[in-house]
């Protein structure tokens, strides 16, 4: 086995994992940009997507092509309920209370999922079989290609949405200055709801396409949510390429860390690098510094 082959395998494994983080990070970034909220329940949307799909396919025997959209819709309904019941009624929405309430929401969703389903892990068959494919000496699963493809499509769609549609532009306006946005007639509350719809749908999509690889259970949302958040932070909370690059970077770092340095400390390595990035460039790697108005 050549060292170069090893490196390509680390690289591809890292990119594949990174694409997952990127997809989840995008969900964080979209809500943040429209509302200023860091949604700690984002990881739970990922979990719900996977669990709904597993249930629909295994118990009702639906065709995956039907089950996947159904699962996305169901998760989106949860996202809407969450926004309506917990976020909107909030009177004094300080950043801290928003952090706490979304953490509370994630605990609640996880708890309900544990009782509604069970504590077991569930598997989902791959969308296009389970025969590995070889690229430049590195092995990947067909599912990895799905992940790459979906990530690219999602970035493309969010680019179009934010640049060319009225709602997208309105959401961007909210992210710059909520008061100014509402002055020019943008319904800020509707934009918040919109953001939750988009990001819960996106989170569940991520959860569905990774389930065949990573399997799913009621508690997968915590760690994967943190990693997604991490990706978004490295990318400077952008709802486009920044976060994607952040996710890929995180994935590759972990993979190289596990393969070359120490598998036990690979997450620690990733987080130390995250801290360094934050210390040196608090605004994220791929974003220009902003001056703060007071």
């Amino acid at each position, binding site marked *: 086995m050549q060292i170069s082959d090893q490196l390509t395998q680390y690289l591809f494994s890292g990119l594949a994992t990174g694409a997952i983080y990127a997809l989840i990070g995008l969900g964080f970034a979209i809500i*943040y940009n429209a509302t200023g909220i*860091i949604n700690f329940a984002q990881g739970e949307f990922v979990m719900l997507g996977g669990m709904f799909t597993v249930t629909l396919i295994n118990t009702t025997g639906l065709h995956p092509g039907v089950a996947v959209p159904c699962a996305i819709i169901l998760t989106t309904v949860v996202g809407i309920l969450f926004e309506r019941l*917990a976020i909107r*009624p*909030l*009177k*004094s929405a*300080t*950043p*801290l*209370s928003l*952090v*706490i*309430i979304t*953490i*509370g*929401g*994630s*605990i*609640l*969703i*996880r*708890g*309900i999922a*544990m*009782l509604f389903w069970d504590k077991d892990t569930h598997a989902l068959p791959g969308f296009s079989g389970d025969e590995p494919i070889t690229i430049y000496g590195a092995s990947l699963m067909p599912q990895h290609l799905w992940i790459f493809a979906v990530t690219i499509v999602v970035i493309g769609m969010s680019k179009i949405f934010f640049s060319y549609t009225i709602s997208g532009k309105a959401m961007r306006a909210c992210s710059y200055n909520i008061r100014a946005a509402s002055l020019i007639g943008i319904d800020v509350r509707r934009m918040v709801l919109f953001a939750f719809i988009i990001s819960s749908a996106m989170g569940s999509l991520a959860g569905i396409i990774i389930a065949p690889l990573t399997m799913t259970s009621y508690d997968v949302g*915590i760690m994967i949510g*943190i990693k997604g*958040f*991490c990706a978004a*932070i490295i990318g400077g*909370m952008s709802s486009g390429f920044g976060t994607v690059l952040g996710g890929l970077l995180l994935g590759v770092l972990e993979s190289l860390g596990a393969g070359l340095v*120490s598998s*036990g*400390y690979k*997450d*620690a390595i990733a*987080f*130390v690098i*995250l*801290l360094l990035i*934050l*210390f040196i460039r*608090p605004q994220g790697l791929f974003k220009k510094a902003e001056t703060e108005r*007071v």
Partner: protein
Amino acid sequence: MKRELLKFLILAILVAILPTLLSGSYLVNVLIFVGIHTMLAVALNLLLGFAGQISLGHAGFFGLGAYASAILTTTYGINPWIAMVAAAVAVSLLAFAIGFPILKLKGHYLAMATLGLGIIFFIVFNEAVELTGGPSGFSGIPNLKIGSITFDNDLKNYGLIWLFTLVTVLLSVNLANSRIGRALRAIHDSEVAARVMGVNARLLKVQIFALSAGISAIAGSLYAHTMGFISPTSFGFNFSIELITMVIIGGLGSIYGSLIGAFILTILPEALRTFQDYDIIIYGIILILMTMFLPGGLVRGIPGLLARLRPADKQEEG
């Protein structure tokens, strides 16, 4: 100032008579944990409530204190009291050093950074097996001793831990009412304004961060010496969240509120135990409802809530 003294005296008397009412009950043991949690919540509140800086990784400092004490006493045979002081100083210094870059961050970036810090500590507890015993834990930690008294039962530990807790509360109340406390609140409201007024905001924030970490480390040492056994599961992300919840429930910037928050969150599982697996759901609901309806915490929130209810009643009558 007299009122503060009175409040503190009432608390001290309560602490002194409670165990006689509960003698022999397992509740004394629960109250030991209330004490440790109070120290931690008060420490976090200094940072969160007064300086306005969030930390999602405080369980890490708690764990550092516990592991430092455990390793120094058990592996190297150092006197537990010396170990406790050494742990507290070392953790404070570490926090002081990390504090400068980390407290430059704001809002969610700070949340992410402290979260990451907590996870890094947790991974070290888990992975440095030769040092910490890894996931299966560290056992055989000696009890604390003063002269011929060994703190080896619930009642003695209760006394010891609540002594530390009361000292922490007293110091924090004094700090809050001092010049430093006012400067901290100024930072909380507007850092730039505070700086213009000649407050060295950056240094002050870092100092509070170090103090908060140091108190957490002492709580960790006490925890290690009373439990006799520690394992990484007690110092994870979940516990950081639990600590924040205690502070929020009690009210940001209210020292006695943190005590009440710690009390409720430690006793709550005892009450919820009859619900078995459902307790996690109830926990989540409490967090959400508290933030929605009592954002100022229980101590300040309940009078406010009552006041809001009362005029409404009158309107209905009238």
